[in-house]
């Protein structure tokens, strides 16, 4: 799974207090990629939804999306697209060595 693009999210009001970035990925998000995020913070995974939803939260980061989607959202407490891109690659398993 590769990161295709990272762009500022237009959904400004909903993520009040956070800078949101929408990440497009090359393949649909998988459950294994979601579960691998646990090391980054507190993960809530609603597996039994029509499209299983996940949200990973820590003090300085959130990552949310759905299994099967070609995109997910990252939130940072500051406007840093480079940091967002780094987290995007981690979440997509683009550079999994950063987790180990």
């Amino acid at each position, binding site marked *: 799974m590769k990161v295709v693009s990272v762009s500022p999210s237009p959904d400004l009001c909903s993520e009040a207090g956070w800078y949101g970035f929408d990440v497009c990925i090359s393949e649909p998000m998988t459950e294994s990629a979601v579960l691998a995020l646990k090391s980054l913070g507190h993960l809530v995974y*609603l597996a039994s939804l029509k499209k299983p939803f996940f*949200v990973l939260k820590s003090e300085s980061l959130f990552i949310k999306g759905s299994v099967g989607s070609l995109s997910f959202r990252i939130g940072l407490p500051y406007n840093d697209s480079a940091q967002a891109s780094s987290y995007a690659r981690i979440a997509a398993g683009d550079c999994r060595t950063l987790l180990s």
Partner: protein
Amino acid sequence: MIWLNNAATSFPKPQAVRDCVNACIDHLPCSDGRSSLLARDALEDARCIAASFFGVRKAERIHFLSGATEAANLIISGLGIGKQAVLATSLEHNCILRPLFSRLERSQIGIVHPDESGRIPSSAIPSFAGAKFFFLNHSSNVTGAVQDAKGLFAEAHRLGMACILDFSQTAGTFPVDLDDIEADVAFCACHKGLLGVPGCAVMYLRDSSLVKPSFFGGTGEHGDVLDMRNSGVFEVGTMNQAAVSALSCGISFIQELGTEKVFGSVSSKVMHIKMELSCLSRIRLASPLEGPCTNAVSFVIDGISPSDAAFILRDSYQIIVRSGLMCAPLAMKDLGLVEGAVRVSPSYLTSDSEIQSFIDAMKDISRSISRSIE
């Protein structure tokens, strides 16, 4: 996509409104005084239609502006508040709160809070007896609770306050009689319950000298008069004729069906949603179950944030709702909702199957949280 965010803006619009907007664009432009093309003035027709719909005996009390936020700002800047004290409710939208907090000293602004039913008790008004202006949101865009504007304004008038009503949420979804309520000034957006399009607001002035204009420009007459400060003219520049005509069509649509039918239908959908949500585990309603309400139904879900809930509804169920603070930070503070809430708001044109899809989605979400992996 299912649009359940009608408290923000209504969708879809009636076919008559869509046809009306297209007709405005397709036909030769005409407006009094600015062209040799003479035609019936859609602006005056809309003024009479709006006046009749809102219980206003004198149509000249109705003015059209480009939006409710513009109206709120124009009113606040034109009232001549100066150093005087004002009273606002904690249920006000940011279109009122931000101009007040940006223009006045904090010490000038008194805030009155609702009781447990989400309504402002008239007994709370005398505590702010020094205020000269009272700003009241007829219905909160968060809770949907409708205030007793007539009773509150009677109390405020008794104490010498001029009364300003924001009826953006009640216009088109709840009966509004501005002369009867005895508002001194009032305004509403035309693109929500009135089923019009963005770009138009109705401003009501019981007496045009109450608010001084702060926008000046061409009016299509008396072009040699340059100082317009005391003109009482608020409609300057080229009016958004399509939006004004859409307002006329939207009101006519409601009147042809009958206000009782339209308002009753919205009320019944809202009640159905509230009853279903109140039966689901982990869902807490922030809107009252009793008393008069408009179409805004807000709630929170234990276990996920409002923005996560809205994300799920859109991504998994193609349902659009509103989440967050909803431009009503003080209302959210009253409710203890730091992250805000989720708001679902049907319109008359929302189908029963769309509402059922929302309820089914909420049942899924409620069940899923109970089984979530953490």
